[in-house]
């Protein structure tokens, strides 16, 4: 080991109650590589020793889409509102799956990584952030499905497609905010582990995956849009298919507001738990 003069870089660390709050951003920046490695670990481990590998990220939404098309599109004659029904489902499914995977992953991440948290220091928020990153990568892969199916149904990309990355970021941040709250609660109350999958399941039916918000009566639409995913999903349909409910701007504003609120509350709740998370895990 090479000897570095100790005075070269004064590196003073003060440990006292509440002191960690002052270093939050600096620490997060210092550990940015860890975020990448943790996300990469989860992706690498998930698809190792599988035959289909990363193709699973395509197969899952594809199968759900086919199921929806058969059951709702063909059997129940659900109306696509002028949009090809499979594309309508897929445009709702991709953001929804991003949301649910990011929320479930980040919500469970602290407990799942208890071994790390009780043995080594790093900014804890990296763990839920890595879980969300994994979901984003999966969503990006599943976008390929869209790229294949759009020409099949004669839908061609327009300038509106530039909104797609923004909508993905919006979804990821909503999920991160909610995930932080859930993760914080989950550290102390393991009940969350049982409640969360059920809530996500309910959300799936409450969100417009298999139908367009157009079918919702007009005066109920903004109530419906209290679910922040409604704005995002309709935004996806507008961006890809060009069809928009006329309340879309308000809905997106609702989603963005919810995102900000969730992030603020989430970070607060997370910080409150983070300081002694190691003692609870």
């Amino acid at each position, binding site marked *: 080991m090479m000897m570095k003069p100790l005075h070269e870089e004064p590196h003073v660390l003060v440990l006292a109650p509440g002191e960690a709050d002052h270093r939050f951003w600096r620490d997060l920046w210092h550990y940015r590589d860890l975020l990448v490695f943790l996300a990469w670990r989860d992706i690498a481990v998930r698809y190792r020793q599988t035959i289909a590998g990363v193709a699973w990220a395509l197969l899952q939404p594809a199968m759900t889409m086919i199921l929806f098309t058969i059951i709702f599109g063909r059997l129940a004659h659900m109306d696509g509102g002028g949009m090809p029904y499979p594309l309508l489902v897929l445009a709702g499914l991709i953001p929804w799956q991003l949301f649910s995977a990011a929320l479930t992953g980040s919500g469970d991440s602290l407990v799942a990584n208890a071994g790390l948290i009780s043995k*080594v220091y790093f900014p804890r928020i990296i763990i839920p952030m890595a879980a969300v990153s994994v979901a984003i990568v999966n969503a990006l892969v599943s976008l390929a499905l869209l790229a294949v199916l759009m020409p099949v149904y004669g839908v061609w990309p327009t300038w509106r497609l530039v909104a797609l990355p923004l909508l993905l970021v919006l979804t990821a941040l909503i999920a991160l905010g909610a995930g932080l709250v859930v993760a914080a609660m989950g550290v102390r109350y393991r009940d969350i582990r049982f409640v969360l999958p059920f809530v996500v399941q309910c959300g799936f039916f409450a969100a417009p995956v298999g139908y367009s918000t157009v079918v919702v009566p007009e005066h109920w639409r903004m109530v419906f849009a209290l679910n922040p995913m409604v704005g995002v999903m309709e935004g996806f349909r507008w961006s890809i298919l060009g069809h928009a409910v006329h309340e879309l701007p308000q809905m997106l504003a609702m989603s963005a507001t919810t995102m900000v609120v969730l992030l603020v509350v989430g970070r607060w709740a997370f910080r409150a738990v983070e300081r002694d998370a190691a003692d609870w895990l």
Partner: protein
Amino acid sequence: MTKPIISVENLGKRYRVKRPGMREGGGLRHAIEAGAASLWNGLSRMFKGRAPYDRIAPEDEFWALKDINFEVQAGECVGIIGRNGAGKSTLLKILSRITEPSTGRAVLRGRVGSLLEVGTGFHPELTGRENIFLNGAILGMRRHEINKRMDEIVAFAEVDEFLDTPVKHYSSGMYMRLAFAVAAHLDPEILIVDEVLAVGDVQFQKKCLGKMSEVAKDGRTVLFVSHNMAAVQSLCKIGVLLEQGSVVQVGLASEAVTAYLANGSICGEGFNTSGRQRKPTNCEIIDAWIERDGVPTQALLFGERADIIIVIQVVKRIKFAVEMILRQQDGLAVKFAPSGLAFDWEIDQASGSLKIRCQLPPMRFASGGYSIDLITACSGKEFYDYIESGLRFTVDSSAVGERNWMFNQSRNQGYSLWEVNYQVDQNEITQGL
């Protein structure tokens, strides 16, 4: 004088203890009931400018550490010792930032590398190379730093041909070597190490100890927690002795180890007359203790020498012998030392009190508790005083030999090491099959 590299001031860590009435594990329902009250409490405290989380009722709190003060100068190797529950791990957790202190503060003037476990974050499915990157990042290294040290790490771990094999196929020795190698090349100014040497094979342990003393010689500061007193003594210059959450001694490592062993609060009693078998006549045993290097103690390390001091009140001039019986933890008598019958040593003394020093041979004993019966007698005829288990002492768990093997009474392999000199008879080797 330069500022100390570590200064700890009034450091304390408080935990919440569950009262018997509280439901185990908490649970959401209980939390909602209690939460409403405490949320209101917290909010009102926050508006009054007090910390919202400072609301543990005094009867529910437990101080794992309280008022810890010590300083470490750069380049020192400090051993932190103490019994289980003395607060060693809590102290390490605070200094490695895993948990926050409840009171006081610690100032660390240097890059900290902490190693509370070897191989934290290793994933069995990932290859050796991938785990080096992952583990390095978890320990706080940047990607380019890991790249720069990759060759050194691989060389230290001796795993180069298996670098692209998933670590689940590694032998446990390879796994440990790789894990330690990453941590050892963290290049911190302050290295915090917890008991990691208790695992792995001999060569590995030697290598780790070597690496640690190399780190210390390099001007780095090492904080080392261990139950292995021998390792602490050989590796550390300074010792910090913790007891029930407080620092009881800071000083030379050898002195701290002595204090640790001398501390009787664990086995509780010194001289104890509750096992007295008869009313003493003629010569009564009035006090007794064990001395290690002239200091009273109730705990010894494997292989150490000790003296037993017995104080006897002689009522009338009489010739008597001193006898001692050593008993194992379970009460089984294992050794007998009758001064008259075996060694032809007796006292013929006018009345008054006298102090007898009994020099014991090196105690190559299994760790665990022992007791000694203290007897005065007219050799072979009658007892004048007989105190069963009048003295108790423990032999502290410490490694025997080079392999970190722990010799323990509870293993049922006897209580004392049988020192056999094993050798191959050179004249009787048959070559070939």
